[in-house]
Structures are given as structure tokens and as C-alpha cells.
């Protein structure tokens, strides 16, 4: 576990405020009839302001479910989830979340800027403030030139950048990302990883990131939370003391390889060696199946 008094990012330490506090959380799903699936068991996790935490584990380990618990998209069976010092439900009603899913979930009937505008409309901001924030967000994700385009005119990576801009438009306390780059090819994914790190450093937003890619988790995170399946639980938390900013050279750093190995061994020890892409969809299904 990370020491809350040490700022993992190496930025001037703000007060070590807890953004997410998960205490003794169990999550069980009714699998129909008498069968009950235990998705998560005995989860304790604390995430501090400005952290970049990845959740990684084999399919069925409940990493997506854990993310949804933080976002109050599903409720815990036992235990409590607090965000910014209040229950997750209150945080959601207070619009303190930004969500990015594996699919960009952009609306075709809206242009790029109107997609980013959506949460601002819901917040009821006045027009000039909206326009100011949209311009700032599109600049942040470097899509200012595409403001008037429609989503279907953009590549997959660009669409996901629009989704990130939309998620950050509310200036959320926490950004939840559920395998956001899982559908992208390896080259685009690496570019998006650098992009996300830049955005994280520019905005200082706390990010929780679900992935099934070990290199991605290590490259991005200040901490990697390793989970195992049946029942889903946290088996290890690996600190990633790689400096910032991280770039292509980081990927060639021996310490980076060491950490990748460390996470891989932690996964293996937890019984989850295979974290390849095809498994991830099963994992999502598992998580989504439990919502309804």
C-alpha cells in the first residue's frame, strides 16, 4: 500500500486528500435461482488525490465491477464506497465523475463540440462558460480543428479523445476509465497512453484505469492494483516509482521492465496468467450482466 504521506507523482505535495475510500466491500450478483456469484470479496482500497491507479487482473476478477462501484453505477452488497468524503451515490449526484468506456459512446447526431457540450448542458452552465470549457477541452485533447466534425468522421483514437474531453469537461474530482483503449491497435494505444499521461499531468485529475494490459498499467500508473478471480479480490498493490514525464524512453527503461515483470508475477501468483484481449470481453460481460 502506498504511504499517503509520500506524493507518488513527485509533484509539490498537496494535502494528502483521499479521493476514494473503499472499506470491506463485497459484491454478489444473483445469477438466477439459488445461485449467487461473488464478484468481489473483502475489498479495501484508498486512492489519493492526483494518483493514477490501474486495476488489472484476469477476466472475472471484478475489476470493471470495482470501477463501477466507485462510480456508483452499481451498489456494493457489503461495505462502503466513499468519494471525496461522501458516499459514492452523493458524489454521482454531485456530478463529480468523468467516465470513459471501452467504446467512445459518442452521439452521432451531435458534432464533436456538441458531444463535449452534453455534460455542460446537464450542469446548466451559461453559454459563454460552456463555450470556454469546450474550447479548452478540445485544445487539451488536440482536436480543436475537428470541433464541427461528426464522430463518424473521426478515427477510433480521435473518438476516444473526444470521449476524454467530454469526461473532463465537468472538471470531475475523479476520472474513471474502463479499458478505454482496448479496442485500439497497439500503435494507437501507445500514442493514447502518452496522451492520457500528458492530460493527467496538465489537469491533475485523479484517474482510475481498468486495463488488461500489463505494459499499459505500468507505463501509466503511480500504483497498479493487481486482482485475482473467483472471488475477485486485491492480491497485491505494486508501486510504480518511474519518474515523470514518461515517454518512449520510459518503455526502454530497465526499471520499467522490472515493474512489468513484477506485475506479471503478482498476477501469476494470484492465479491469473492470461490477460489477453479476448478474455477482456468476457470480463465486461460478467460485469455488465450483474447490473440489470
Amino acid at each position: 500500500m502506498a504511504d499517503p504521506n509520500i506524493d507518488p507523482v513527485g509533484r509539490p505535495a498537496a494535502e494528502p486528500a483521499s479521493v476514494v475510500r473503499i472499506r470491506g466491500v463485497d459484491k454478489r450478483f444473483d445469477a438466477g435461482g439459488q445461485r449467487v456469484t461473488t464478484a468481489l470479496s473483502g475489498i479495501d482500497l484508498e486512492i489519493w488525490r492526483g494518483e493514477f491507479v490501474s486495476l488489472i487482473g484476469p477476466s472475472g476478477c471484478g475489476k470493471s465491477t470495482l470501477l463501477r462501484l466507485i462510480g456508483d453505477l452499481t451498489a456494493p452488497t457489503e461495505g462502503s464506497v466513499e468519494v471525496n468524503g461522501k458516499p459514492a451515490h452523493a458524489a454521482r449526484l454531485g456530478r463529480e465523475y468523468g467516465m470513459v468506456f471501452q467504446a467512445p459512446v459518442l452521439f452521432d447526431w451531435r458534432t464533436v463540440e456538441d458531444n463535449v457540450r452534453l455534460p455542460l448542458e446537464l450542469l446548466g452552465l451559461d453559454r459563454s462558460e460552456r463555450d470556454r470549457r469546450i474550447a479548452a477541452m478540445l485544445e487539451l485533447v488536440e482536436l480543436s480543428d475537428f470541433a464541427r466534425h461528426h464522430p463518424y468522421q473521426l478515427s477510433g483514437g480521435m473518438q476516444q479523445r473526444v470521449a476524454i474531453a467530454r469526461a473532463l469537461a465537468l472538471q470531475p474530482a475523479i476520472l474513471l476509465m474502463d479499458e478505454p483503449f482496448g479496442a485500439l491497435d497497439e500503435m494507437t494505444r501507445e500514442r493514447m497512453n502518452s496522451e492520457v499521461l500528458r492530460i493527467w499531468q496538465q489537469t491533475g485529475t485523479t484517474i482510475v484505469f481498468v486495463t488488461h494490459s500489463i505494459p499499459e498499467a505500468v507505463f501509466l500508473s503511480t500504483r497498479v492494483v493487481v486482482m485475482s478471480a473467483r472471488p475477485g479480490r486485491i492480491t497485491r498493490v505494486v508501486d510504480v516509482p518511474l519518474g515523470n514525464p514518461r515517454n518512449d524512453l520510459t518503455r526502454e527503461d530497465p526499471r520499467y521492465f522490472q515493474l512489468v515483470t513484477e506485475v506479471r508475477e503478482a498476477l501469476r501468483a494470484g492465479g491469473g496468467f492470461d490477460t489477453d484481449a479476448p478474455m477482456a470481453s468476457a470480463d465486461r460481460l460478467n460485469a455488465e450482466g450483474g447490473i440489470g
Partner: protein
Amino acid sequence: MTSAAPAVGVPLPPTPGRVARLGRGLRYYAPAVITFVAVIVVWELATSSAPEPRILPPPSAIVAALIENWGAGRWPLFDSARATLYEAVGGLVLGTAVGVLVAFAISRWASARDSVLPFAIAANAIPIIAIAPIFNAWFGVTNPFSKMMIVALLVFFPIMINVTRGLTQVESSALELMRSYAASDWEVLRKVRLPNALPYFLTALKVATTLSLIGAIVGEYFGGSTTVIGRVVVQSASALRFDVTWAAILLAAVTGIAFYLVVVALERALIPWHASVRGDAPA
């Protein structure tokens, strides 16, 4: 298979300009036009020397009958088409309005779905020909409203089912996104479900335009005003004036196509972003 060979050394055509685009357009429509002209010519040649009365008169006779009966005479075709279109549009508006309202109700409340849907399905199972005489008697055989009710019954179901689909078949992640923004049901309806349902609605409306003319004409078969397409068809056929019958059918078809094209234009104006409308050219 020579076409499989790579076209090495073949000079590329010049940059496509207006002329090239026109050429491509011609080539696209040419097969249809050629077929159409060929059918008309064969039809004309095969039927022009047949003895009267001809059940299938030559195209020239049909066009002559259309012109002759356009404004006056026993079968005033223009007024008939206008009256039939009036019934069709009136019924379409009525059926669409009710269909959309019911769709909203059943996509919002499960209790509405459970109580209304069986009856809607049952109503849809009634053959329209069986119910038309009843509606004529019920709402007044000479009153255009009786035909509108038949049309309304006919178009209600496809509109209702499609709009319901559009309102409910929303990506689950889109709903989660709205949930993460703590959006109200009303906001989800307005910003997600409604725009999502629009393409479904317009697709159903295209089907409904054709259905509305069928419904109106079937209703007319069972009596009512004589200056309507349905009566012209029945009476001219029994008077062995098949040229007039065909002229009326031609007019009904053209009206139906025009009606359909209006909805296509509406579609282009309302949902230019949808895959069915947009040209899929990337930026």
C-alpha cells in the same frame, strides 16, 4: 478471369470532374431506363392491335385516358387522386400520432406495455379488408373520416413498434454515461432516446406512406364518394373502361411515390448524421 489481373500500365482516368460524374450517373441509371423503355415498347407493340375491350390497353391509350379524364367527365382523375390523398394523409397523421403516443407510454411504463401491447398486436392481426366495411358504417360511408380511420389502423402498428424500438434500443453504455452525469429520466429521453428513435420513426413513416394509400383505396372499395381513386377503379373496370382503370392505378402509384419521396426529403433534413442518409466519406 482477366479482371483479376492488376491494371499495370493502364493510364488512370483524368481527375473526375462534372462530366465524369454525369457519366457515372448515366451509367448508374442506364440499366433501369433501358429496361423501362424496352418494357413500354414491347407492351405497346403487343397490345395495340388487340380487340376491344382490352384488359391491358397499350401505354399510349392509358396516357390518353389520363389526359382525357384529368379534370372532367365521369371519372375526374385529378379530383379523385386529391380526395384519396386527403384521406391517406389524414389517416397517416392520426395513426402516427396515436402510434407515437402509445410508443412513448409503453417504453416508459411496463404496466402500459403489458396492458396495451397484446391489443395492439391483435389489432394488427385483423386483415384490413375485413374491418373496412365496419369502419365505413361506423364513421359514415361518405365521410372521408371513415377512410382515415382505416388508414390510421393500418399505419398505427408499424409506427408504434418502430418508435418503441428506437426509444428502448439505446446502447447500455450511453445510458450508463447519462447515469454517471446524474441525468434525469427526462434528460435521458430528450438527449438520448428521442434522437435515437428518429431514424426508426422515419423508416416506419416511409412504410406508412405506402400503407396509407392502400388503406384509403381499400376503404373506398366498400362505398362512399365516387370521386376517389378506389371508386374510379371499381366503376371504370365494371364499365370495361380498363384504360381509365389503368390511368387511375398509374396516378395512385405516382402519388404514392411522391408521398414516399417527401419522407425521404424529410429524412435527409432531419437525420443527415445517420448511416442511412450520409455518404460514408471519412474526413
